[in-house]
């Protein structure tokens, strides 16, 4: 009996071992590079010596999302090109922030290149934790300007968002932010001519499309957080004509415009949103869109690839994309991108820079799939060949490029105190959405809190 069991275990291990080889190890370089040699040759055409840091090793930390996972699968290309060994870690957003914080605060220089949330750049500028990348951009031995095409191939607002006080701390990996996404088929069904151009129209459309228990008119982020509900609501704050503070940094969250924007945001969700929307963050919104429970949202354009994939989404092919509605102050888009920067305590700064140029190169962005997995380069985004596989892409690109014109990098103010301010205001907004407070009380209270935070940080000396 024992012997039989032993043989059985041995055979199972053998099967597992062999099947690992069957399923592993295929690399895919996208539709434009047939083999690894093709992509390597494209890199070799640039005017720099890729092998100048041969033998060095660097460590990169990023976010565990499909875009970056695709890039990391191509790391063997970089290693073969340069002879630099890359250790890469992709972790959740929470973990990412914690690990970077520990490394930068302790000045241990563990991570040479790292993914950065632009909302925290002001903090890192104050703590002098990151390298000024212009040193590397302007160094002809490590950057061939004709090949890298900086800044021309990147959208201007996204370049600016990677700067604090005009120092370039990061290169954008993506091009994202906010976009209005709506069910074209339901619009046709209800006879609504086109996507909402104003907030009044948005209210009207959400109410017409609200069919409780089957689908809900609108869903937007309610979960409290500097990068959660604040990511979307701050576009309302600005479009309604509100401001965070005046020229003397006195907060203006208790102004009628801001209160109105908070009231509108929470009322439209309370009336036409799904139950529990006050704690919805992007993953819940995405599954709401995919399962057909939500008709309109304002959230990240990155949803496109996931809601149009028939294997992932019940609603594939039914979506329309449009710029956000305009308020009395026009349209506001909250831009977002992950940036890659270099640790000031890194011992392999130039090698890290080569890795960054490789990661943000046209070749890699073409290889990982262009705008179906959103990337930062304008030339890659604008390539019409992607539409062959994805017919919805044309509408998506037009809408996104139009919305980007209204991008405001300071939608969420990029000061070192923003993480705390964002959390406190986010909680106040959530209290309004969940019905615990009315908009006026909540905004007046939180205005005082923001004043205290800025006071403690020395803004009123």
């Amino acid at each position, binding site marked *: 009996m024992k012997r039989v069991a032993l043989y059985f275990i041995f055979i199972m291990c053998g099967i597992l071992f062999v099947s690992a080889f069957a399923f592993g190890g295929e690399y895919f370089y996208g539709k434009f590079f047939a083999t690894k040699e093709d992509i390597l040759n494209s890199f070799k055409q640039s005017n720099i010596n890729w092998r100048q840091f041969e033998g060095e090793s660097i460590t990169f930390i990023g976010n565990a999302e499909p875009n970056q996972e695709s890039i990391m699968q191509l790391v063997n290309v970089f290693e073969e090109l340069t002879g630099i060994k890359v250790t890469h870690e992709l972790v959740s957003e*929470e973990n990412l*922030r*914690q690990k970077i*914080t520990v490394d*930068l*605060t302790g000045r241990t220089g563990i991570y040479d290149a790292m993914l950065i949330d632009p909302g925290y750049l002001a*903090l*890192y500028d*104050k*703590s*002098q*934790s990151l390298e000024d990348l212009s040193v590397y951009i302007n160094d002809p031995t490590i950057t061939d300007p004709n090949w890298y095409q900086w800044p021309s191939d990147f959208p201007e607002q996204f370049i600016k968002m990677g700067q604090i006080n005009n120092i370039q701390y990061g290169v954008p990996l993506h091009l994202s932010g906010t976009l209005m996404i709506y069910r074209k088929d339901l619009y046709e069904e209800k006879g609504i001519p086109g996507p909402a151009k104003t907030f009044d129209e948005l209210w009207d459309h959400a109410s017409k499309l609200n069919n409780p228990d089957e689908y809900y008119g609108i869903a937007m982020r*309610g*979960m*409290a*957080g*500097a990068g959660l509900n604040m990511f979307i609501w701050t576009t309302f704050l600005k479009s309604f004509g509100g401001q965070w503070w005046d020229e003397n940094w006195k907060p203006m969250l208790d102004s009628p415009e801001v209160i109105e924007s908070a009231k509108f945001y929470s009322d439209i969700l309370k009336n036409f949103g*799904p*139950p*529990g*929307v*006050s*704690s919805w963050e992007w993953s819940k919104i995405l599954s709401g869109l995919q*399962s057909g*429970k939500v008709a309109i949202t304002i959230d990240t354009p990155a949803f496109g690839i996931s809601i149009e994939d028939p294997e992932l989404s019940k609603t594939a092919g039914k979506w329309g994309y449009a710029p956000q509605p305009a308020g009395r102050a026009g349209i506001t888009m909250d831009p977002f991108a992950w940036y890659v920067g270099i640790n000031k305590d890194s011992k392999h700064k130039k090698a890290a820079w080569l890795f960054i140029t490789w990661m943000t190169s046209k070749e890699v962005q073409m290889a990982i799939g262009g705008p179906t997995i959103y990337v930062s380069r304008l030339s890659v985004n604008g390539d019409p060949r992607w539409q062959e596989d994805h017919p919805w892409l044309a509408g998506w690109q037009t809408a996104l490029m139009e919305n980007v014109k209204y991008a405001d990098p300071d939608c969420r103010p990029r000061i*070192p105190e923003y*993480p*705390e301010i964002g*959390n406190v205001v986010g*909680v*106040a907004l*959530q*209290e309004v959405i*969940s*019905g*615990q*407070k009315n908009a006026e009380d909540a905004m007046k209270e939180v205005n005082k809190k923001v004043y205290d935070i800025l006071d*403690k940080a020395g803004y009123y000396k």
Partner: protein
Amino acid sequence: MRTRKVEIFAFILPGLLFLIIFSLYPTLFTWYTSFRDFSIFSNNFNGLRNYFELFKDNVFYISLKNSLLYVIFAVGFEFIIGMLIALLFNQNFKGKSIALIFIMLPMIIPPVVSALSFYMMYDPTLGLMNYILKNLFHISGFSWLTDPKTAIWAVVLIDIWQWTPFVSLVLLAGLQYLPKETLEAARIDGANSIQIFFSITIKLMRKIIMIALLFRTVEAFKAFESIFITTKGGPGYNTRTLNIYAYIKGFEFMKFGEAATLAILMLFVSSFLISIFRKFFSKEEIK
């Protein structure tokens, strides 16, 4: 005699070193940090400023209240239900060993997994809880985690589900070591089960009960996953306990000095709770 002492010391040394490095040093460093303005870009001595700021912060008092609510209700229910389970398993019945395995299962599951599972079950549209309510009982569901009235209780329930088995195990051990003669004598004298339970059983199990409650109180005070994964402290501040607030201060605001201050205050509160327990459970004699 000398060699005995050296031997003893040599055996204790590894454990002692571990405690010093991973327990004593971090505690002392946290204490030290609480007196500093320590963030990602500053590290200056700050005296008692952090403490004064915290006492002026109304969110601190809200968090304290939430922590106490969580502990009292979680541990309270865990004790009552745990005691009932222990009494049940103190007797013999068919299928007892299999039932015991199932009862113990929640304890073995990592807290993150149970928090995630409950998070999905609590979903108002797709979750199991509302599905059962709607289809079996024909009540419209609740927004468990987002309704300010239900959020904290939903979160306490996760703790109760996960740790009642622990309490019942400890209490069962206590029940099995009760002197049988005393109980039989009481029964012969005519006492009924309820009188026996309250006058004798509970009194004899005093120390064991104290151990179970103490362990659970300290752990419930530190509860993290059950809250962070489900509500992140929301809606509003409704489920923000001291521990969650310390995390937010440290890793969202990047203000480590203030987070350390919260941690030290938590240390004081839990020490206070422990001393209350010890006084309460050691003072009475068995009549």
